[in-house]
Protein backbone atom coordinates (compact mmCIF):
# COMPACT_ATOMS: atom_id res chain seq x y z
CA UNK A 1 0.00 0.00 0.00
CA UNK A 2 2.82 2.36 0.91
CA UNK A 3 4.34 1.73 -2.51
CA UNK A 4 1.10 2.75 -4.20
CA UNK A 5 0.89 5.86 -2.07
CA UNK A 6 4.45 6.89 -2.94
CA UNK A 7 3.94 6.15 -6.63
CA UNK A 8 0.71 8.10 -6.47
CA UNK A 9 2.41 11.08 -4.88
CA UNK A 10 5.14 10.89 -7.51
CA UNK A 11 2.72 10.82 -10.45
CA UNK A 12 0.63 13.42 -8.65
CA UNK A 13 3.66 15.67 -8.33
CA UNK A 14 4.07 15.63 -12.11
CA UNK A 15 0.38 16.51 -12.46
CA UNK A 16 0.89 19.22 -9.87
CA UNK A 17 3.77 20.82 -11.78
CA UNK A 18 1.70 20.79 -14.98
CA UNK A 19 -1.32 22.07 -13.08
CA UNK A 20 0.76 24.93 -11.66
CA UNK A 21 1.43 26.05 -15.21
CA UNK A 22 -2.25 25.76 -16.11
CA UNK A 23 -3.30 27.64 -13.04
CA UNK A 24 -0.73 30.44 -13.50
CA UNK A 25 -1.86 31.09 -17.05
CA UNK A 26 -5.53 30.79 -16.17
CA UNK A 27 -5.20 32.92 -13.05
CA UNK A 28 -3.43 35.75 -14.82
CA UNK A 29 -4.39 35.64 -18.49
CA UNK A 30 -7.87 34.24 -17.70
CA UNK A 31 -7.62 31.62 -20.40
CA UNK A 32 -7.35 27.83 -20.50
CA UNK A 33 -4.26 27.02 -22.48
CA UNK A 34 -5.17 23.55 -23.70
CA UNK A 35 -1.87 23.43 -25.58
CA UNK A 36 -0.11 23.32 -22.21
CA UNK A 37 0.09 19.51 -22.27
CA UNK A 38 1.70 19.56 -25.68
CA UNK A 39 4.37 21.96 -24.49
CA UNK A 40 5.28 19.16 -22.06
CA UNK A 41 5.70 16.86 -25.02
CA UNK A 42 7.94 19.40 -26.79
CA UNK A 43 9.94 19.68 -23.57
CA UNK A 44 10.34 15.91 -23.56
CA UNK A 45 11.53 15.81 -27.19
CA UNK A 46 13.82 18.83 -26.78
CA UNK A 47 15.65 17.27 -23.85
CA UNK A 48 15.65 13.85 -25.55
CA UNK A 49 17.24 15.25 -28.71
CA UNK A 50 19.81 17.23 -26.74
CA UNK A 51 20.88 14.09 -24.88
CA UNK A 52 20.59 11.41 -27.57
CA UNK A 53 21.56 13.27 -30.74
CA UNK A 54 23.81 16.03 -29.44
CA UNK A 55 25.21 14.04 -26.54
CA UNK A 56 24.70 16.83 -24.04
CA UNK A 57 24.76 15.99 -20.33
CA UNK A 58 21.29 15.67 -18.76
CA UNK A 59 21.52 18.89 -16.70
CA UNK A 60 22.35 20.96 -19.80
CA UNK A 61 19.64 19.17 -21.77
CA UNK A 62 17.07 20.04 -19.11
CA UNK A 63 18.08 23.71 -19.19
CA UNK A 64 17.95 23.65 -22.99
CA UNK A 65 14.48 22.13 -22.84
CA UNK A 66 13.30 24.82 -20.39
CA UNK A 67 14.69 27.45 -22.77
CA UNK A 68 12.94 25.94 -25.80
CA UNK A 69 9.59 25.69 -24.02
CA UNK A 70 9.82 29.19 -22.54
CA UNK A 71 10.39 30.68 -25.97
CA UNK A 72 7.69 28.44 -27.46
CA UNK A 73 5.21 29.61 -24.81
CA UNK A 74 5.95 33.27 -25.52
CA UNK A 75 5.70 32.74 -29.29
CA UNK A 76 2.39 30.83 -29.01
CA UNK A 77 0.93 33.57 -26.86
CA UNK A 78 2.08 36.31 -29.26
CA UNK A 79 0.87 34.62 -32.43
CA UNK A 80 -2.22 32.74 -31.34
CA UNK A 81 -3.66 34.30 -28.20
CA UNK A 82 -2.65 37.97 -28.15
CA UNK A 83 -4.71 38.87 -31.25
CA UNK A 84 -7.72 37.43 -29.37
CA UNK A 85 -7.23 39.46 -26.20
CA UNK A 86 -10.65 41.07 -26.54
CA UNK A 87 -12.38 38.10 -28.22
CA UNK A 88 -14.85 35.81 -26.45
CA UNK A 89 -13.37 33.15 -24.22
CA UNK A 90 -14.87 30.48 -26.49
CA UNK A 91 -12.80 31.73 -29.44
CA UNK A 92 -9.65 31.61 -27.31
CA UNK A 93 -10.50 28.13 -26.06
CA UNK A 94 -10.97 26.77 -29.57
CA UNK A 95 -7.74 28.42 -30.67
CA UNK A 96 -5.95 26.73 -27.77
CA UNK A 97 -7.29 23.35 -28.90
CA UNK A 98 -6.07 24.21 -32.41
CA UNK A 99 -2.60 25.04 -31.10
CA UNK A 100 -2.62 21.72 -29.24
CA UNK A 101 -3.31 19.73 -32.42
CA UNK A 102 -0.84 21.87 -34.35
CA UNK A 103 1.98 21.03 -31.92
CA UNK A 104 1.09 17.32 -31.94
CA UNK A 105 1.11 17.18 -35.71
CA UNK A 106 4.34 19.10 -36.05
CA UNK A 107 5.88 16.65 -33.60
CA UNK A 108 4.49 13.80 -35.71
CA UNK A 109 6.19 15.25 -38.79
CA UNK A 110 9.50 15.89 -37.07
CA UNK A 111 9.82 12.88 -34.80
CA UNK A 112 7.30 10.42 -36.39
CA UNK A 113 4.95 8.26 -34.36
CA UNK A 114 7.67 5.76 -33.42
CA UNK A 115 8.12 5.97 -29.68
CA UNK A 116 11.44 7.25 -28.40
CA UNK A 117 12.82 5.57 -25.31
CA UNK A 118 13.66 8.30 -22.87
CA UNK A 119 16.81 7.71 -20.80
CA UNK A 120 16.60 7.47 -17.03
CA UNK A 121 18.53 10.57 -16.17
CA UNK A 122 18.31 9.99 -12.43
CA UNK A 123 19.64 6.43 -12.41
CA UNK A 124 22.72 7.51 -10.47
CA UNK A 125 20.55 8.50 -7.52
CA UNK A 126 20.32 5.36 -5.37
CA UNK A 127 16.78 4.31 -4.39
CA UNK A 128 15.95 4.40 -0.71
CA UNK A 129 13.86 1.79 1.05
CA UNK A 130 11.12 2.77 3.47
CA UNK A 131 9.56 -0.31 5.04
CA UNK A 132 8.36 -2.47 2.17
CA UNK A 133 8.46 0.38 -0.34
CA UNK A 134 11.34 1.40 -2.54
CA UNK A 135 11.57 5.03 -3.60
CA UNK A 136 13.37 5.52 -6.87
CA UNK A 137 15.58 8.46 -7.75
CA UNK A 138 13.08 9.94 -10.20
CA UNK A 139 10.33 9.73 -7.57
CA UNK A 140 12.42 11.64 -5.05
CA UNK A 141 13.45 14.27 -7.59
CA UNK A 142 9.86 14.70 -8.78
CA UNK A 143 8.43 15.19 -5.31
CA UNK A 144 11.25 17.54 -4.35
CA UNK A 145 10.92 19.54 -7.57
CA UNK A 146 7.21 19.93 -6.97
CA UNK A 147 7.73 21.31 -3.47
CA UNK A 148 10.51 23.67 -4.57
CA UNK A 149 8.45 24.96 -7.51
CA UNK A 150 5.39 25.56 -5.39
CA UNK A 151 7.33 27.50 -2.78
CA UNK A 152 9.17 29.49 -5.45
CA UNK A 153 5.94 30.40 -7.25
CA UNK A 154 4.23 31.39 -4.01
CA UNK A 155 7.12 33.67 -3.10
CA UNK A 156 7.32 35.04 -6.63
CA UNK A 157 3.65 36.01 -6.87
CA UNK A 158 3.48 37.18 -3.26
CA UNK A 159 6.69 39.11 -2.82
CA UNK A 160 8.21 40.27 -6.10
CA UNK A 161 7.28 43.36 -8.06
CA UNK A 162 6.60 41.31 -11.20
CA UNK A 163 4.56 38.75 -9.25
CA UNK A 164 2.38 41.42 -7.70
CA UNK A 165 1.94 43.04 -11.10
CA UNK A 166 0.75 39.66 -12.41
CA UNK A 167 -1.87 39.49 -9.69
CA UNK A 168 -2.93 43.05 -10.48
CA UNK A 169 -3.25 42.19 -14.19
CA UNK A 170 -5.27 39.10 -13.32
CA UNK A 171 -7.84 41.25 -11.55
CA UNK A 172 -8.15 44.27 -13.78
CA UNK A 173 -6.07 44.81 -16.91
CA UNK A 174 -7.29 48.38 -17.36
CA UNK A 175 -6.50 49.44 -13.81
CA UNK A 176 -3.12 47.68 -14.05
CA UNK A 177 -2.35 49.67 -17.20
CA UNK A 178 -3.15 52.89 -15.34
CA UNK A 179 -0.51 51.92 -12.75
CA UNK A 180 2.05 51.81 -15.55
CA UNK A 181 2.11 48.01 -15.79
CA UNK A 182 2.77 46.71 -19.31
CA UNK A 183 -0.06 44.17 -19.50
CA UNK A 184 1.18 42.47 -22.68
CA UNK A 185 4.64 41.97 -21.26
CA UNK A 186 3.23 40.66 -18.00
CA UNK A 187 1.07 38.10 -19.80
CA UNK A 188 4.09 37.06 -21.91
CA UNK A 189 6.04 36.45 -18.71
CA UNK A 190 3.19 34.34 -17.35
CA UNK A 191 3.32 32.14 -20.42
CA UNK A 192 7.11 31.97 -20.17
CA UNK A 193 6.94 30.72 -16.59
CA UNK A 194 4.09 28.29 -17.27
CA UNK A 195 5.89 26.84 -20.28
CA UNK A 196 9.20 26.60 -18.47
CA UNK A 197 7.41 24.56 -15.80
CA UNK A 198 5.93 22.40 -18.55
CA UNK A 199 9.47 21.59 -19.73
CA UNK A 200 10.42 20.44 -16.23
CA UNK A 201 7.23 18.38 -16.07
CA UNK A 202 8.08 16.91 -19.48
CA UNK A 203 11.51 15.75 -18.33
CA UNK A 204 10.13 14.24 -15.11
CA UNK A 205 7.20 12.59 -16.86
CA UNK A 206 9.37 11.06 -19.59
CA UNK A 207 11.93 9.82 -17.08
CA UNK A 208 9.21 8.06 -15.08
CA UNK A 209 7.28 6.82 -18.14
CA UNK A 210 9.99 6.57 -20.81
CA UNK A 211 7.72 6.11 -23.83
CA UNK A 212 7.88 9.40 -25.75
CA UNK A 213 5.36 9.93 -28.58
CA UNK A 214 3.73 13.10 -30.01
CA UNK A 215 0.64 12.57 -27.85
CA UNK A 216 2.65 12.04 -24.66
CA UNK A 217 1.54 15.38 -23.23
CA UNK A 218 -2.13 15.20 -24.13
CA UNK A 219 -3.50 12.94 -21.38
CA UNK A 220 -1.31 14.26 -18.55
CA UNK A 221 -2.27 17.76 -19.73
CA UNK A 222 -5.95 17.01 -19.41
CA UNK A 223 -5.46 15.32 -16.06
CA UNK A 224 -3.46 18.25 -14.79
CA UNK A 225 -6.31 20.49 -15.89
CA UNK A 226 -8.64 18.28 -13.83
CA UNK A 227 -6.18 18.63 -10.95
CA UNK A 228 -6.16 22.41 -11.28
CA UNK A 229 -9.96 22.55 -11.28
CA UNK A 230 -10.07 20.04 -8.44
CA UNK A 231 -7.80 22.21 -6.29
CA UNK A 232 -9.41 25.48 -7.37
CA UNK A 233 -8.16 26.92 -10.64
CA UNK A 234 -6.07 30.04 -10.16
CA UNK A 235 -4.82 28.86 -6.78
CA UNK A 236 -1.18 27.76 -6.47
CA UNK A 237 -1.52 25.51 -3.40
CA UNK A 238 -4.79 24.26 -4.90
CA UNK A 239 -2.96 23.04 -8.01
CA UNK A 240 -0.46 21.17 -5.88
CA UNK A 241 -3.03 19.53 -3.62
CA UNK A 242 -5.27 18.74 -6.59
CA UNK A 243 -2.38 17.21 -8.51
CA UNK A 244 -1.19 14.99 -5.69
CA UNK A 245 -4.70 13.80 -4.77
CA UNK A 246 -5.38 12.98 -8.40
CA UNK A 247 -2.14 11.02 -8.75
CA UNK A 248 -2.89 9.03 -5.60
CA UNK A 249 -6.47 8.34 -6.70
CA UNK A 250 -5.26 7.16 -10.08
CA UNK A 251 -2.55 4.79 -8.79
CA UNK A 252 -4.62 3.44 -5.90
CA UNK A 253 -7.63 2.86 -8.16
CA UNK A 254 -5.40 1.07 -10.65
CA UNK A 255 -4.16 -1.22 -7.87
CA UNK A 256 -7.49 -1.89 -6.17
CA UNK A 257 -9.68 -2.33 -9.25
CA UNK A 258 -7.27 -3.34 -12.00
CA UNK A 259 -10.10 -4.32 -14.33
CA UNK A 260 -11.51 -0.82 -14.58
CA UNK A 261 -9.46 1.85 -16.40
CA UNK A 262 -8.27 4.25 -13.71
CA UNK A 263 -9.09 7.30 -15.82
CA UNK A 264 -12.75 6.66 -15.06
CA UNK A 265 -12.06 7.48 -11.44
CA UNK A 266 -10.01 10.54 -12.32
CA UNK A 267 -12.80 12.09 -14.36
CA UNK A 268 -15.50 10.95 -11.92
CA UNK A 269 -13.63 12.97 -9.30
CA UNK A 270 -13.78 16.04 -11.57
CA UNK A 271 -17.53 15.66 -12.04
CA UNK A 272 -18.16 15.21 -8.34
CA UNK A 273 -16.00 18.22 -7.41
CA UNK A 274 -17.75 20.38 -9.98
CA UNK A 275 -21.13 19.32 -8.60
CA UNK A 276 -20.28 19.80 -4.94
CA UNK A 277 -17.85 22.71 -4.95
CA UNK A 278 -17.59 24.29 -8.39
CA UNK A 279 -14.79 26.63 -7.30
CA UNK A 280 -12.59 23.67 -6.28
CA UNK A 281 -11.07 22.72 -2.93
CA UNK A 282 -9.20 25.99 -2.44
CA UNK A 283 -11.19 28.02 -4.94
CA UNK A 284 -11.35 31.71 -4.36
CA UNK A 285 -14.63 33.24 -3.43
CA UNK A 286 -14.12 36.94 -3.20
CA UNK A 287 -16.46 39.19 -1.35
CA UNK A 288 -16.73 42.36 -3.33
CA UNK A 289 -18.02 45.57 -1.92
CA UNK A 290 -19.02 48.36 -4.22
Amino acid at each position, binding site marked *: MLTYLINGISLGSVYAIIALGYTMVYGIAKMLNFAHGDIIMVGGYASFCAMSYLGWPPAVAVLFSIGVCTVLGIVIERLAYKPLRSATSLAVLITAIGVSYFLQNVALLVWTSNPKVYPNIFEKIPPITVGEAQISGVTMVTILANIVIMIALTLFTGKT*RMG*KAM*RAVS*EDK*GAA*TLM*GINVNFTISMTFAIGSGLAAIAGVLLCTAYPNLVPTTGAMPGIKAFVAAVFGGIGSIPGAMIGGILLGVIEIVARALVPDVPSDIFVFAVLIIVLLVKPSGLLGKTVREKV
Partner: protein
Amino acid sequence: MANSENGKTMLKVEDLNVYYGSIHAIKGISFEVNQGEIVTLIGANGAGKSTTLNTVGGLLKASSGTIEFEGKSIAGTPAHKVVSEGMALCPEGRRIFQRLTVKENLEMGAYTRNKAEADETIEKVYEQFPRLKERFRQIAGTLSGGEQQMLAMGRALMSKPKLIMLDEPSMGLAPILVQQIFDIIESLNKDGTTILLVEQNAQMALSIADRAYVLETGRIVNSGTGDSLLHDDSVRRAYLGG
Protein backbone atom coordinates in the same frame (compact mmCIF):
# COMPACT_ATOMS: atom_id res chain seq x y z
CA MET B 1 -1.27 78.58 -5.10
CA ALA B 2 2.28 79.05 -3.99
CA ASN B 3 4.05 77.71 -7.02
CA SER B 4 5.46 80.30 -9.41
CA GLU B 5 4.65 77.98 -12.34
CA ASN B 6 0.96 78.29 -11.54
CA GLY B 7 -1.28 79.31 -14.37
CA LYS B 8 0.83 77.64 -17.06
CA THR B 9 -1.14 75.30 -19.31
CA MET B 10 -0.60 71.76 -18.13
CA LEU B 11 -3.06 69.69 -20.11
CA LYS B 12 -4.35 70.87 -23.46
CA VAL B 13 -6.96 68.85 -25.34
CA GLU B 14 -7.93 70.03 -28.80
CA ASP B 15 -10.68 68.89 -31.13
CA LEU B 16 -10.81 65.43 -29.57
CA ASN B 17 -12.98 62.79 -31.24
CA VAL B 18 -13.54 59.35 -29.75
CA TYR B 19 -15.62 56.50 -31.11
CA TYR B 20 -16.94 53.41 -29.36
CA GLY B 21 -17.33 51.17 -32.38
CA SER B 22 -19.72 53.18 -34.52
CA ILE B 23 -20.90 55.44 -31.68
CA HIS B 24 -19.39 58.90 -31.83
CA ALA B 25 -18.96 59.40 -28.08
CA ILE B 26 -16.79 62.54 -28.03
CA LYS B 27 -17.47 65.07 -30.76
CA GLY B 28 -14.58 67.45 -31.11
CA ILE B 29 -14.12 68.77 -27.60
CA SER B 30 -11.36 71.16 -26.56
CA PHE B 31 -10.41 72.12 -23.03
CA GLU B 32 -7.39 72.87 -20.94
CA VAL B 33 -6.21 72.51 -17.39
CA ASN B 34 -3.70 74.98 -15.98
CA GLN B 35 -1.13 74.23 -13.34
CA GLY B 36 -2.51 74.49 -9.81
CA GLU B 37 -6.16 74.46 -10.86
CA ILE B 38 -9.10 72.30 -10.00
CA VAL B 39 -11.04 71.84 -13.23
CA THR B 40 -14.22 69.85 -13.37
CA LEU B 41 -16.19 68.26 -16.19
CA ILE B 42 -19.85 67.96 -15.31
CA GLY B 43 -22.72 66.46 -17.23
CA ALA B 44 -25.37 63.78 -17.20
CA ASN B 45 -24.82 60.05 -17.49
CA GLY B 46 -23.47 59.19 -20.93
CA ALA B 47 -22.37 62.74 -21.74
CA GLY B 48 -18.82 61.52 -22.32
CA LYS B 49 -17.09 62.59 -19.12
CA SER B 50 -15.49 59.25 -18.31
CA THR B 51 -14.70 58.62 -21.97
CA THR B 52 -12.79 61.90 -22.01
CA LEU B 53 -10.74 60.99 -18.93
CA ASN B 54 -10.08 57.45 -20.16
CA THR B 55 -8.85 58.82 -23.48
CA VAL B 56 -6.53 61.32 -21.80
CA GLY B 57 -5.31 58.52 -19.52
CA GLY B 58 -4.53 56.36 -22.55
CA LEU B 59 -7.07 53.58 -21.97
CA LEU B 60 -9.04 54.59 -25.06
CA LYS B 61 -7.69 55.68 -28.42
CA ALA B 62 -8.82 58.97 -29.90
CA SER B 63 -9.74 58.88 -33.57
CA SER B 64 -8.54 62.43 -34.02
CA GLY B 65 -7.47 65.47 -32.06
CA THR B 66 -4.48 66.31 -29.90
CA ILE B 67 -3.72 65.75 -26.24
CA GLU B 68 -0.74 67.67 -24.93
CA PHE B 69 0.67 67.31 -21.45
CA GLU B 70 3.22 69.96 -20.49
CA GLY B 71 3.64 70.82 -24.14
CA LYS B 72 4.33 67.23 -25.20
CA SER B 73 1.88 65.24 -27.30
CA ILE B 74 0.78 62.07 -25.52
CA ALA B 75 -1.86 60.89 -27.96
CA GLY B 76 0.38 58.09 -29.28
CA THR B 77 1.95 57.14 -25.95
CA PRO B 78 1.17 53.55 -24.88
CA ALA B 79 -1.29 53.60 -21.98
CA HIS B 80 1.15 52.12 -19.49
CA LYS B 81 3.66 54.89 -20.16
CA VAL B 82 1.27 57.79 -19.61
CA VAL B 83 1.65 57.53 -15.85
CA SER B 84 5.40 58.14 -16.10
CA GLU B 85 4.65 61.49 -17.76
CA GLY B 86 3.25 62.70 -14.44
CA MET B 87 -0.42 62.07 -14.89
CA ALA B 88 -2.53 59.62 -12.89
CA LEU B 89 -6.12 58.53 -13.47
CA CYS B 90 -8.22 57.37 -10.56
CA PRO B 91 -10.88 55.48 -12.52
CA GLU B 92 -14.64 55.35 -12.16
CA GLY B 93 -15.81 52.68 -9.77
CA ARG B 94 -12.43 52.90 -7.98
CA ARG B 95 -11.16 49.64 -9.55
CA ILE B 96 -8.82 48.85 -6.71
CA PHE B 97 -7.25 45.39 -6.78
CA GLN B 98 -9.72 43.60 -4.53
CA ARG B 99 -7.56 40.58 -3.81
CA LEU B 100 -4.37 42.49 -3.08
CA THR B 101 -3.69 44.01 0.32
CA VAL B 102 -3.98 47.74 0.91
CA LYS B 103 -0.20 48.06 0.91
CA GLU B 104 0.17 46.03 -2.29
CA ASN B 105 -2.41 48.24 -3.99
CA LEU B 106 -0.35 51.28 -3.04
CA GLU B 107 2.84 49.60 -4.24
CA MET B 108 1.19 48.98 -7.60
CA GLY B 109 0.48 52.71 -7.80
CA ALA B 110 4.24 53.28 -7.63
CA TYR B 111 5.00 50.53 -10.14
CA THR B 112 7.01 52.82 -12.41
CA ARG B 113 9.13 54.22 -9.58
CA ASN B 114 11.97 52.69 -7.59
CA LYS B 115 11.49 51.27 -4.14
CA ALA B 116 13.13 54.10 -2.20
CA GLU B 117 10.89 56.71 -3.86
CA ALA B 118 7.86 54.51 -3.32
CA ASP B 119 8.64 54.04 0.37
CA GLU B 120 8.91 57.78 0.80
CA THR B 121 5.62 58.46 -0.97
CA ILE B 122 3.77 55.71 0.87
CA GLU B 123 4.46 57.51 4.16
CA LYS B 124 2.97 60.71 2.73
CA VAL B 125 -0.09 58.82 1.52
CA TYR B 126 -0.48 57.25 4.97
CA GLU B 127 -0.36 60.76 6.47
CA GLN B 128 -3.05 61.88 4.08
CA PHE B 129 -5.17 58.78 4.67
CA PRO B 130 -4.52 57.46 8.20
CA ARG B 131 -7.20 54.83 7.69
CA LEU B 132 -5.09 53.17 5.03
CA LYS B 133 -2.15 52.94 7.40
CA GLU B 134 -4.33 51.26 10.03
CA ARG B 135 -5.44 48.71 7.48
CA PHE B 136 -2.35 48.27 5.34
CA ARG B 137 -2.33 44.48 5.70
CA GLN B 138 -6.02 44.03 5.00
CA ILE B 139 -7.28 42.59 1.71
CA ALA B 140 -8.57 45.61 -0.20
CA GLY B 141 -11.88 43.96 -1.12
CA THR B 142 -12.88 43.95 2.54
CA LEU B 143 -12.62 47.73 2.94
CA SER B 144 -15.74 49.89 3.14
CA GLY B 145 -16.76 51.96 0.12
CA GLY B 146 -15.25 55.16 1.53
CA GLU B 147 -12.01 53.41 2.41
CA GLN B 148 -11.84 51.91 -1.06
CA GLN B 149 -12.19 55.38 -2.56
CA MET B 150 -9.39 56.61 -0.32
CA LEU B 151 -7.29 53.65 -1.42
CA ALA B 152 -7.98 54.39 -5.08
CA MET B 153 -6.92 58.00 -4.59
CA GLY B 154 -3.91 57.03 -2.50
CA ARG B 155 -2.89 54.53 -5.16
CA ALA B 156 -3.08 57.21 -7.86
CA LEU B 157 -0.98 59.54 -5.69
CA MET B 158 1.74 56.89 -5.36
CA SER B 159 3.06 57.82 -8.80
CA LYS B 160 3.51 61.39 -7.48
CA PRO B 161 1.47 62.83 -10.33
CA LYS B 162 1.53 66.51 -11.27
CA LEU B 163 -2.01 66.08 -12.56
CA ILE B 164 -4.49 63.70 -11.00
CA MET B 165 -7.71 62.86 -12.82
CA LEU B 166 -10.54 61.74 -10.56
CA ASP B 167 -13.51 59.99 -12.11
CA GLU B 168 -16.63 60.15 -9.93
CA PRO B 169 -14.86 59.97 -6.57
CA SER B 170 -18.10 60.55 -4.67
CA MET B 171 -20.05 57.78 -6.38
CA GLY B 172 -22.03 55.60 -4.00
CA LEU B 173 -20.73 57.26 -0.86
CA ALA B 174 -22.73 58.54 2.13
CA PRO B 175 -22.99 62.36 2.27
CA ILE B 176 -20.56 62.64 5.16
CA LEU B 177 -17.96 60.67 3.19
CA VAL B 178 -18.60 62.76 0.09
CA GLN B 179 -17.73 65.86 2.11
CA GLN B 180 -14.60 64.13 3.39
CA ILE B 181 -13.48 63.13 -0.12
CA PHE B 182 -13.98 66.69 -1.39
CA ASP B 183 -12.00 68.05 1.57
CA ILE B 184 -9.19 65.69 0.62
CA ILE B 185 -9.33 66.84 -3.02
CA GLU B 186 -9.01 70.45 -1.91
CA SER B 187 -6.10 69.67 0.37
CA LEU B 188 -4.31 67.74 -2.40
CA ASN B 189 -4.73 70.79 -4.58
CA LYS B 190 -3.31 73.07 -1.87
CA ASP B 191 -0.29 70.77 -1.70
CA GLY B 192 0.37 71.53 -5.36
CA THR B 193 -1.40 68.77 -7.31
CA THR B 194 -3.42 69.92 -10.29
CA ILE B 195 -6.83 68.26 -10.45
CA LEU B 196 -9.17 67.29 -13.25
CA LEU B 197 -12.40 66.13 -11.69
CA VAL B 198 -15.35 64.39 -13.30
CA GLU B 199 -18.48 64.42 -11.19
CA GLN B 200 -22.19 63.82 -11.29
CA ASN B 201 -22.46 65.69 -8.04
CA ALA B 202 -22.28 69.02 -9.88
CA GLN B 203 -23.06 71.10 -6.80
CA MET B 204 -20.04 69.83 -4.88
CA ALA B 205 -17.76 69.79 -7.90
CA LEU B 206 -18.55 73.37 -8.95
CA SER B 207 -18.16 74.66 -5.40
CA ILE B 208 -14.50 73.57 -5.23
CA ALA B 209 -13.56 74.05 -8.90
CA ASP B 210 -11.63 76.98 -10.30
CA ARG B 211 -13.10 76.33 -13.71
CA ALA B 212 -15.64 73.95 -15.18
CA TYR B 213 -16.86 72.58 -18.50
CA VAL B 214 -20.35 71.24 -19.10
CA LEU B 215 -20.59 68.21 -21.36
CA GLU B 216 -23.72 67.19 -23.20
CA THR B 217 -23.79 64.16 -25.53
CA GLY B 218 -20.12 64.43 -26.38
CA ARG B 219 -19.92 68.22 -26.78
CA ILE B 220 -18.88 71.02 -24.48
CA VAL B 221 -21.94 73.24 -24.22
CA ASN B 222 -20.87 75.64 -21.51
CA SER B 223 -17.79 76.62 -19.55
CA GLY B 224 -16.66 79.18 -17.04
CA THR B 225 -15.48 79.56 -13.48
CA GLY B 226 -16.95 77.14 -10.94
CA ASP B 227 -18.72 79.98 -9.23
CA SER B 228 -20.29 81.43 -12.38
CA LEU B 229 -21.65 78.05 -13.47
CA LEU B 230 -23.01 77.43 -10.00
CA HIS B 231 -25.21 80.47 -10.56
CA ASP B 232 -25.90 79.90 -14.25
CA ASP B 233 -29.61 79.38 -14.92
CA SER B 234 -29.28 76.62 -17.52
CA VAL B 235 -26.77 74.73 -15.40
CA ARG B 236 -28.97 75.12 -12.32
CA ARG B 237 -31.97 73.74 -14.18
CA ALA B 238 -30.13 70.81 -15.75
CA TYR B 239 -27.75 69.68 -13.03
CA LEU B 240 -28.51 71.34 -9.74
CA GLY B 241 -32.22 70.62 -9.42
CA GLY B 242 -33.56 74.14 -10.01
